[in-house]
């Protein structure tokens, strides 16, 4: 699980061009949007694409999606259970 979280952080940094950040800067339970990493709607679409391309997960339900994108912890747990790649 820790390996998956690290991989996820690296992929997020790469996809969102957070060049001044390293994986250690992202806390596992910190909110990804607004007060946490401060991501916005364009970043959310990037994360959806990241989930689709790298883990074969398509998030279509808004309710479920909002829960998944709460933090690195919630994303990693969801990927672990639902990944097809």
């Amino acid at each position: 699980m820790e390996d998956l979280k690290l991989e996820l952080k690296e992929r997020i940094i790469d996809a969102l061009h957070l060049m001044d950040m390293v994986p250690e800067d992202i806390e596992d339970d910190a909110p990804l949007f607004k007060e946490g990493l401060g991501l916005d709607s364009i970043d959310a679409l990037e994360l959806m694409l990241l989930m689709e391309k790298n883990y074969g997960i398509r998030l279509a339900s808004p309710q479920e999606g909002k829960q998944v994108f709460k933090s690195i912890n919630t994303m990693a747990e969801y990927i672990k259970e639902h990944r097809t790649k």
Partner: protein
Amino acid sequence: MSEERQWSGQTHGTPWMHRALIAMFKVCPLELMYLIMALVIPFYMIFYRPGYLSIYHYLRRRQGWGPVRSFFGCYANHFLFGTALMDRFAAYSGRHFRTDMHDFHLFSGLSAQPEGFLMYTSHVGNPEMTGYMLKSEVKRMNVITFPGEKSSIRAWRENMLGPNNIRLISATEDMSWLFTLNAALADGEIVNIHADRSFGSPKTLEVNLLGAQAHLPLGPFSLAAMRNLPVLASFSLKAGIRRYNIFIYRLDTPEMAAMGREERQQALADAYARLLDDVLHRHPLQWYNFYEFWN
């Protein structure tokens, strides 16, 4: 794009006012409604100074018109904007407009492909009329709308656009609409989005528009570059009392497909700015961004 430079996306009036307006359009000739509006516009220009001034500055600085021509141009712009709003209500009441569609094959060609595509509109002309005339037989079209729209207006729009296989997606404060949008594109549907105003993200791309630096929202261009999607742009321009010309353009090029993501989104924004430039030179009075668009 700073908040004070953005339009709030609110529609004005109460549901009963909208219903009354639609009822009026069922019985009153459109010409009579235009005439009444023509008398009201000077008051609107006096009491809504920011809107008036932004158009005056646009005509003076960006179109290079003289002061007197710009002043009367402001009146004509406000009048045309009023007719665009009235035509929407007239359409809700069942009135029909003559529409000449140019290059529809670009739309039908992409619709026949399995992948989805984006369609950019802007606050030039009356983009809503495109939705009434452009029936999407093969793919569903998803139109991203501002969240400030009144429910009564939204209900009328859904009523009008639904039979044309068009779904409205409201860009709400939370992220829910993004999942719907993402699923639509993944399913190969069409997403129609304004490419001249920000919502959801303050990030912008810098372009040259009418000889000066302007900012277009990053979202629509990033979305296209992210998924490497084809992009169309459409303009619905008023050509007479009951007449519109709808122009469709293909924005992406084979060269863009070979570019990296960031380069491609900038190339798309530049191409869109060039297209806006051309349309605004030909139809300078149908520019309806009533705030200081240029810094």
